[in-house]
């Protein structure tokens, strides 16, 4: 699976409705406060990227597509193995 598929699979397993890649999971109220933290840990563990304070912007985590862009950017920046 590519990066987006893995993100889609993880979020899909944790929300109860079908999502488009650009759906804002926070705006739609699909996830609670615990899942926000869970999502950050998932990104760090699954993709071996370091999420620092500046990265923790809602815009980087609000949708499947946003997370995909964020991870690809981090990998491109050389923070992933």
């Amino acid at each position, binding site marked *: 699976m590519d990066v987006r598929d893995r993100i889609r699979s993880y979020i899909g397993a944790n929300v*109860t409705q079908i999502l488009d890649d650009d759906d804002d999971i926070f705006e739609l109220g699909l996830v*609670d406060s*615990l899942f926000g*933290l869970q999502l950050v840990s998932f990104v*760090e563990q699954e993709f071996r990227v370091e999420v620092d304070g500046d990265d*923790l912007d*809602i815009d980087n985590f609000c949708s499947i597509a946003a997370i995909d862009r964020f991870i690809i950017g981090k990998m491109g920046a050389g923070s992933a193995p």
Partner: protein
Amino acid sequence: MIDEAVSESSTAADRARRFVGEMVEPLAEKIDREQHFSGQLVGALGEQGWLGAALPAQWGGGGLDPVDYGPVLEEFGWGCASARTLLTVHNMAAQAVLRYGNEEQKQLYMPGLASGRSIIAFALTEPDAGSDANAIGMSAVEDAGGYILSGEKIWCSFGCIADLFLVFASCNGKPLALIVERDSPGLEIERMTDAFGTRGSELARLRLDGVRVSAANRIGAANAGIRFVANTALDHGRFSVACGTVGIIRACLDTCTVYAARRQQGGAPISQHQLVRRTLTDGLVAYTTARALCERAARLRAAGDPRAAAETALAKYHSAEAAIRVANDAVALLGANGCSPEFPVSRYLRDATVSGIIEGTREIHQISLASYALQRPWTDA
């Protein structure tokens, strides 16, 4: 192997047990009665490394990981819930600064926070914003390289003595987090008294009237104040409350087992009475299960596991509910003595009740943990 592991991981807990037994627990009743936490004890907590115990050694902290820190919190919870509250609020706000602060902010704040020379309080709750943190009314207006803050915060634990406040405000509808210094012009701090429990928590009401804060004091992104900064702090707070509440259960058991063995009724110690024995058994089960959940949460936290936040919430919910039940049973087991200030169990009940409310109420946990249940976490346990 198990004994070795326990021995290694209990080093910090052993030190905490000695410190709490000698320096904290003997003051707990006085702290509760006088609703005041001694400045001398705050100093000792800093000097002995307890305020920065879970902060990185890089900044002068103790560097304890959650597996080692949890039992330390249990000891403080056993001895004095107000002391545990100080560790909770200071550490949770400091952890947020550590996670979201930039290098300059860490250089500025972390040495003081890790050493305990500087105390930081967490200022989120408002008169009209509790469980719904997104409803905060504290306004932040951008102005000349900073923000002007106006509004009110309540139930700010250790706000009466804090040097710094992690304050959450809304700027153009976006929630942000800012560090506000105690001597900021326009900040008024008023003591809140006669709370039901953790009465030595130096509770404060903060009134901010045009308090100017530099943009350099903003922690995290301009839209991440609640979703990430506050929730990260609250996650650390829940772990602390969960472990501390295990200590309350143990304290109840300490009192109840001694009392039941000594108290004679009907020609025998009440420990031989069947319903008293049931109370002791229920208490033991509560302690064992709550501690096991805290240990599980600690291991997941140490591993950076995505389930850690939810498992921490699970531990906090269970521990607090169990502590309320056990403390209530303890008061009943002691009969009229349970209602007397001569015994600590009524304080334990009041403190346990507060644990069930702070860092997420019982009802909020019931809602959010149902979402976790729908993830079927047991399938990859």
